[in-house]
């Protein structure tokens, strides 16, 4: 290995370690914190330095993995986004988000199949099916608001969380009773691979078109939602309800309406996630387990932050793919399956509110 091949990755790693240690300054309260921060900074520095050295060895291959990882990370973000929306607006951790993706996916694929089987042209059938499944999600929102949340107004967050576990089983059962429980293939987006940046790297980099579509859609969704939350009256009302039910009522915010809006938006985000993931995996029951993959994304990004869900997804997606390829050859494969959880654990250790989460302030 050349001198440059050692110095550059080492430098990048060291800079990162210093930066990380500095940024965590505010979170240190005792010597134990300092020790933990030093250790984690060093681990991060070694990992990044190691990746950098691999990147210098083979820039084309590295970029391909990185881009592929980032794009699949965006797909995690899509699911995580649904969680964030509801948590931000009602302080409820919605366990049913995975089930909602399943409901949306099944409604979409089954209505699409039904329409095409009855001779409706595909170009007309797709919007119709999307409208139908949007209506199904709106119905879900109405039912959950009326029968699950409204009776529990002003209750503890944990109580509401438990009620969403109940909602999960009902939704999963009902959806499969109504729409069937097989694996249904969905083809909304092209899934061919394509080659990008042919001129820059030898052989270019191979990217799945579906991932590009997913990235584009998620990007638009996030920009829109972030602006909506930050700058509109309804966005403000949503945040107000999340903070304090009674106070929100006292300024005349209609809580039932707000909850309906939130669950509707979360349902529509679930629908978008279902179109992309359904195309990737086929619509099937195991799609509900996406919720488990969204959990580390949420912990890393912060439960209350829309941009956090995206950044968390990108970190998890890119991190697990890179770790699988480059660490896999050193310590054995299968890293992809646990990398996200270990990363989430490390984040919990130093920054329990996540990278972008609002600091939890408790006045005693």
């Amino acid at each position, binding site marked *: 290995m050349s001198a440059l091949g050692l110095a550059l990755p080492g430098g990048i790693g060291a800079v990162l370690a210093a930066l990380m240690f500095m940024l965590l300054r505010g979170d240190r309260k005792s010597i134990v914190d300092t020790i933990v921060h030093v250790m984690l900074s060093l681990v991060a520095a070694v990992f990044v330095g190691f990746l950098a050295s691999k990147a210098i060895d083979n820039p084309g291959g590295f970029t391909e993995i990185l881009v592929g990882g980032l794009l699949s990370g965006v797909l995690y973000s899509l699911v995580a986004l649904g969680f964030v929306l509801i948590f931000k607006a009602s302080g409820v951790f919605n366990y049913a988000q995975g089930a909602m993706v399943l409901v949306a996916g099944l409604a979409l694929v089954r209505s699409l199949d039904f329409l095409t089987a009855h001779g409706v042209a595909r170009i007309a059938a797709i919007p119709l099916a999307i409208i139908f499944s949007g209506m199904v999600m709106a119905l879900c929102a109405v039912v959950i608001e009326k029968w699950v949340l409204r009776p529990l107004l002003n209750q503890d967050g944990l109580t509401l969380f438990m009620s969403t576990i109940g909602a999960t089983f009902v939704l999963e059962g009902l959806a499969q009773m109504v729409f069937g429980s097989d694996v249904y293939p969905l083809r909304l987006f092209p899934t061919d691979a394509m080659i990008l940046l042919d001129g820059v790297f030898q052989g270019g980099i191979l990217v799945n078109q579906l991932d590009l579509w997913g990235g584009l859609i998620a990007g638009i969704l996030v920009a829109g939602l972030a602006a909506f939350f930050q700058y509109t009256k309804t966005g403000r*009302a949503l*945040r*107000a309800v999340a903070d*304090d039910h*009674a*106070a*929100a009522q*006292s*300024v005349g915010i209609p809580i039932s309406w707000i909850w309906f809006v939130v669950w509707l938006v979360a349902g529509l985000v679930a629908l978008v996630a279902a179109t992309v993931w359904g195309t990737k995996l086929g619509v099937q029951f195991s799609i509900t387990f996406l919720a488990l993959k969204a959990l580390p994304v949420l912990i890393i990004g912060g439960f209350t932050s829309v941009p956090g869900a995206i950044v968390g997804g990108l970190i998890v997606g890119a991190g697990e793919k890179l770790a699988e390829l480059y660490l896999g050859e050193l310590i054995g494969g299968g890293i992809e399956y646990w990398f996200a959880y270990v990363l989430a654990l490390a984040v919990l250790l130093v920054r329990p509110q996540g990278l972008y989460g609002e600091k939890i*302030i408790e006045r005693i």
Partner: protein
Amino acid sequence: MSTDTSMPLAPVATREVGVGTAAARSGARSGMLQNAARAERPRVSRVGDVLLAVENVSLSFGGVRAISDVSFDIRKGEIRAIIGPNGAGKTSMLNVINGFYHPQQGAITFKGEKRREMRPYFAATSGISRTFQNVALFKGMSTLDNMMAGRTLKMKRGLLWQALRWGPAEEEEMRHREVVERLIDFLEIQHIRKQPVGKLPYGLQKRVELGRALAMEPELLLLDEPMAGMNLEEKEDMSRFIITVNQHLGTTIALIEHDMGVVMDLSDRVVVLEYGRKIADGTPDEVKRDPKVIDAYLGVSH
């Protein structure tokens, strides 16, 4: 009040308020009696008809009676105090007026409209706003956003316009922002405009909460211990704000307060509760001479 967004707040009153300082120091009990000589304030002329009437209200939680057969009224333009020892049912009374609690018996008449019970949303839309005993702000949001949340009912544009954030919706947002900025100036909280309120000291949080309630341009403002836990200077500021709001905006105010000096100075009429029953009702002077009130506060030797 119409949706007119121009609030005549500009001339902030400079009227000196003597917040019963001696009373505050020597404790509420004796303060109430010492203040007997304090001069009457000629404020009766601006007080109008009955704005809100509470009739024979009883409220219980299971077997616990929080309020028993209480009636009183609040007149337009006055400052009405509700006092009483701990557990007398003062906060429950505010919660009944504001619709958080629904009484088993009685009725509430607001602006001539008689209702069996209030609902929070109805209370807010018809012009009642309030603050809370243990500050209930939207902690994660900035001062500005908290107060803008108070404008929710005044903003009419639909979801679609807001999402586009263009044309009428943007113009509307600007208009309401202006009102809120004027309030911020009035409450002297310009420096914390963009800070998340959860991090602010207690006294400032109380002030922001008052700001949020004022942003609703209420006809009736309910203040639940607006000065609890404040130091003397903060109490004086708060009293000044309350009086200015009352005099310049004509807002009717009902307040619960434990500092007797403040109560006697600010209020036009006082209602006294004890164990959920009304034991006295009248001007500060009448109330403070009432033997039942003195007994309630000082205890009776049998």
